[in-house]
Each structure stands twice: as structure tokens, then as C-alpha cells.
């Protein structure tokens, strides 16, 4: 079923994820809405515990059994939150694929790479193993693995971290997905290899025109790959903005602080690092007021009692703040 490119391939509406008893509830995702079309890249940036990974686990149907969800997750028009395992299995790994942070943990240790790639094609694309092997080989070439023939015969532990992540990327693209979700795809890698993987992801975006959801704590990585950014704090999207606007017109004080804190090689030389005071919020934080207010230099009395909504509604550029920075 071809998808109209105007319609988002992935649409998340008012998604909430909670754990724990009603008396002691952890609200890890709060009322999050996102949309991703084919061909575009949405970056989700947030610190550890902000709920960014929980959002994608909810999309992939991989949440813990104790999680309670509300809202809607639609993939090509199909509701995923209430979908059966059979439906999810039909989509996952094929049209809706994922690249995890730690490829060694995500690959099966006792199966050769050729088997792990091939079984996706045999299962989802009804190929014979012979066809699947050919396709896998071609895909390993496209992700620039130096000796793809040998790679097919190797086990994950025989590959370097960078090669494993290339294999993960090849795997996610095998069935020409509409959406690929990459959760911290370079965090576990060395910096020279990180740069190679970023290059590769950029090239694959061009070639495959899939929608890419890129999750990271690293604004630099996101700025290098994404078109749009959703900034997540304490389970909520606090700002939606275009990457081009990141440097000049971030409006939420938290986004501005993230940009300020990111250590860079240019600009300020030695000396004190810019910091954000206080601690990241916990998922038990109440929903009264703005979650960032305790750490915010611009906060006023209103911020503690009245929660700011993302505004303007239905716009591409939105901020949830009573006293946003001027653009």
C-alpha cells in the first residue's frame, strides 16, 4: 500500500506512559505528539530519564508489560498501541525498523551475520535463502563494509563496534522501511567511528528516503542529521523547532541551556564550563507547573503553578514556556 507522502508515516498523538500504582505513579511520557513523514529526519533530544527512549519503545510495542499507555500511535494509518503481536511482528523489522545503541546486545551472539540478515528477508519478504544471501551481501556493501562476503560468515563478537553498527543499519534497511528509529546510534562508539556512522546515516537517508527518528542526548549529532528537533524534558516535549533555527532562535530556556552546556572545540577556551544548576527531574514529579522551573533562571511565580502548553497549537515551531526567549 503506497503511502501519500503528505501523510505522516508515523503519527504519535497525546501519548502517555506510566508505571507504578496510582498512589505512587511514575509518569515517564506525558502527552507527547509527534509526526514523521518519509524522507525527513526528526531528532528527539533529551537527557537520561527524560523519557525519550520510552517514547520509541511505546511506538515499537516493546514497553515493559507493567507499562500503561494512553493516546495513539499510528503507523501508515494503523493503530499500533492496541495492535496484536502478530500485527506488530508483521511491521517491526520490516517497514518499521530500529537501530539500537549497543549493537552487540542487539545482535544474536550465536548466529552468523548472514543468518541474522537473511532471516529478516526470508520472513518478511518471502525470499529464498539464496536470494536473501545475495540481498544481504549487497546491503552490507551499501553500508560500506570492507569485506562483506567474510562479514556474512562472521559472528557479532568478531566484528568491531563500528562494523556491528553498520550491520545494524544494514539490517534495518533490508525491507526498505518507511520509518527507522535510531536510539543513540553512535553513543557507544569512539569519536572517529561516530563520525563515520553519522556520514553513513546521512547517505542512507538520501538513498532510501525513509523517515528517520533519531534519539540522542547529543545536540551536535542531532544537528548534523535531523531536519526538525523535539526537545524532551521530564517526559514532555517542551519545544519543536527546525534544526536551522537551533543556533539562532531556540526559545525554551532548557533548549538554550543544552546548547550552552554542550562542550565544543571552538569558541570559549579553557576555563569554567557552562552549567545548568540543579538535578534532572524524576518521573514522580507532579504535573503542576513547568517541570523545568526549579532549574530555570527565567522562572517566575506563575511557572510553579501553571503548566505551559505547547503553543501555538498545530504549528511546526512550538514552545511550552510562559517566558520564552525572544527568537
Amino acid at each position, binding site marked *: 500500500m503506497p503511502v501519500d507522502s503528505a501523510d505522516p508515516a508515523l503519527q504519535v498523538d497525546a501519548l502517555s506512559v506510566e508505571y507504578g500504582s496510582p498512589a505512587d505513579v511514575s509518569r515517564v511520557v506525558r502527552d507527547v505528539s509527534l509526526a514523521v513523514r518519509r524522507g525527513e529526519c526528526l531528532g528527539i533530544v533529551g*537527557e*537520561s530519564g527524560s523519557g525519550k527512549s520510552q517514547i520509541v519503545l511505546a511506538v515499537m510495542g516493546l514497553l515493559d508489560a507493567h507499562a500503561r499507555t494512553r493516546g495513539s500511535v499510528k503507523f501508515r494509518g494503523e493503530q499500533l498501541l492496541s495492535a496484536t503481536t502478530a500485527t506488530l511482528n508483521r511491521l517491526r523489522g520490516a517497514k518499521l525498523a530500529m537501530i539500537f545503541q549497543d549493537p552487540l546486545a542487539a545482535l544474536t551472539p550465536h548466529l552468523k551475520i548472514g543468518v541474522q540478515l537473511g532471516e529478516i528477508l526470508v520472513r518478511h519478504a518471502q525470499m529464498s535463502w539464496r536470494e536473501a544471501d545475495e540481498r544481504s551481501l549487497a546491503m552490507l556493501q551499501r553500508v560500506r563494509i570492507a569485506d562483506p562476503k567474510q562479514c556474512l560468515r562472521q559472528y557479532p563478537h568478531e566484528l*568491531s*563496534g*563500528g*562494523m556491528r553498527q553498520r550491520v545494524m543499519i544494514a539490517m534495518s534497511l533490508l525491507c526498505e522501511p518507511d520509518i527507522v528509529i535510531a536510539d543513540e546510534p553512535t553513543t557507544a562508539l*569512539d*569519536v*572517529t*567511528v*561516530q*563520525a*563515520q556512522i*553519522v*556520514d553513513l546515516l*546521512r547517505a542512507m537517508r538520501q538513498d532510501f528516503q525513509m523517515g528517520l527518528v533519531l534519539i540522542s*542526548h*547529543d*545536540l*551536535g*549529532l542531532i544537528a*548534523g542529521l535531523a531536519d526538525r528537533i523535539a526537545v524532551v524534558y521530564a517526559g514532555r516535549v517542551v519545544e519543536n523547532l527546525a534544526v536551522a533555527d537551533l543556533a539562532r532562535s531556540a526559545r525554551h530556556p532548557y533548549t538554550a*541551556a*543544552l546548547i550552552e*552546556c*554542550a*562542550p*565544543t*572545540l*571552538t569558541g570559549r*577556551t*579553557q*576555563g*569554567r*564550563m*557552562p*552549567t*545548568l*544548576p540543579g*538535578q*534532572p527531574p524524576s518521573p514522580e514529579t507532579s504535573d503542576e507547573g513547568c517541570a523545568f522551573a526549579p532549574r530555570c533562571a527565567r522562572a517566575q511565580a506563575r511557572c510553579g503553578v501553571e503548566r505551559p502548553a505547547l503553543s501555538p497549537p498545530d504549528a511546526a515551531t512550538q514552545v511550552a514556556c510562559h517566558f520564552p526567549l525572544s527568537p
Partner: protein
Amino acid sequence: MNAPLLQVEELSVRFPDRRRRMRKTGSLAAVDAVSFTLAAGETLGLVGESGSGKSTLVRAILRLLPVDSGRVLWRGEDLLALDRQSMRRRRREMQIVFQDPLASLDPRMTVREILAEPLRIFEPGLDRGERERRIAAGLERVGLAADMVARFPHEFSGGQCQRIAIARAVMLAPKMLICDEAVSSLDVSIQGQIVNLLADLQRELGMAMIFISHNLSVIRHISHRVAVLYAGRLVEQAPGDRLFKAALHPYTKALLAAEALLDTAPRAAASGDPLGAAAAPRGCGFANRCAEARSACSLAVPAWESATPEHLVACHRWRELPPRL
């Protein structure tokens, strides 16, 4: 000038290699003939990718790992020649903070017990009231409230746990603090807090620091001098501002380019994978990834050469190549 606080000479650490056990080369060098000095009150940033031997090097200096050859001079005295008891007495002068704060704090000990431990061992004569005062002061010094002493590590966030680990490390005012990726697992907004805290403590206590990180940007903020490690060997050392303005070794240049690439626009990064010590060839360890390598590079290990008295580089071709500006 006085003798340096720490002087490491040709230090090598070898591990047995199961795959090559039957051959003559039954071991591989995780740290290969590394030499550097550390002056009192100075911060040396140690950069390198995973597997380059950063952690092995500092653990060997602290004698937490057996050393194969070389010398570690601590205020002129060879640490490797000390017996266990004498070494133990020196340990109060040199402390380490690890990457994962939760893993380096005993989950069954309260903060009070964690901070009391160094005092119990090295200052057993303290009476209880004095010990409590020292613990409270230690907590306040790292920006935590003194009334947190009865809590357990799991009740704290990652950044707070790292503060506790730092408080423990500086309890006895050491002369040298080693930070092994001490901020790498922390969120960006917290990293800066911890780096600034370490810089403050260093000034306050006059400690020297070895600050290990794979992140050049963080190193740049805190280090007086920077040493770059690749495949178990130091390839370049220079004062911080000089290294970031005029790097000479192709590997240092590649590292800087890769970080700049992640910062902004695409630029050429090193191709290939980082070389673990296991694969270190006879010549320059970086030769097989280096765009500037010539056949001579894989024949001999490049020796240290001085670009300036303080800027050392181990590269056969550095004179022919432009510095990275």
C-alpha cells in the same frame, strides 16, 4: 625547578595473549613504553579511544595492575620497588575516581560509612566527633548537604553519586587525583558541574590531576597539558592551548576533525576502526589508518621529537605535514 610529582618512564604493561600463547610473542602490550611527567598542581588530560590503554596506564601507575617493565617515580621514589606496606602508606596521596559512580560505591554502605572509610584506615586516631565533622565538611566541599550522610548510594542521581565518589577521593587531601572518564556517563548539563567542581577542588587542595577522557572538548576545558594515547603508545603531548591550535600528529588531527565533524559541517575523519593494543604493529601504531602514512611508517616506531620544548610528537612525517590550525 623541583623534581616532578610523578615521573613515568618507559612503562609497559603486557597481557598474555591466548591466541599467540604458543608462539614467541606470548603477550601483547596494552601500554607500550609510555613516558610522561606530572608536576604538582598540574592537570594532564589523557585522550584516546577505547582500547588505547588509558585505563590500563593509570591503573598500572597506582599498582592496581602488574607492570611489565619501566619505572614510576613518585616524588623521586620508585613506586614499583615498594613493598606492600610502604605502597599502602603512599596510597593516601594518590586517589582515583571511576567512570560509573554507582558501581564504585558499595551499595550497602551509607554515605557516612563510605566517607569514614579512608579516615578509619589512614587516621585511626580521630575521635568520633572529629570524624563526623570531617565527613560533613567533605560533603559540603562537593556541594552536597551534610544531612545526607545516612542515605545509601541508590538514593542519589548519577551526578550526586559522582560527587560522593569525589568527596571520598579527596577526603585525605591527596597530592594527585586520577579521574578515569569521571564525567563520561553523566548528562551534558551535569558534566559541566562536575568538571567545575574538580577544577575548584584542585585549586583549593593544590592537587595534580590526570584527567582521562575520550571527549576532547571536556579535556580542553580542564587540562593544562594534554597527552594523546593510541594503541598503547603516546603519540603527542603538548600544552592544552597549543594542542588544540596546532596539533601535529595525524591521529590527533583526525580526532579533532572527528569532533569538529560532529559539531558542524562534514570533514574528513579517520577511516577504519581504532586499533586495539592487540593489533599494534612494529612501526607506528596509527600507520594503517593514517592518510599520510608512507611505507617507512610501518617499519619503525617513531621516536619523540620536540616541536617546541613542551610540544612532543611521535610521528615520522610531522615536519612535512602542516599543523591543524
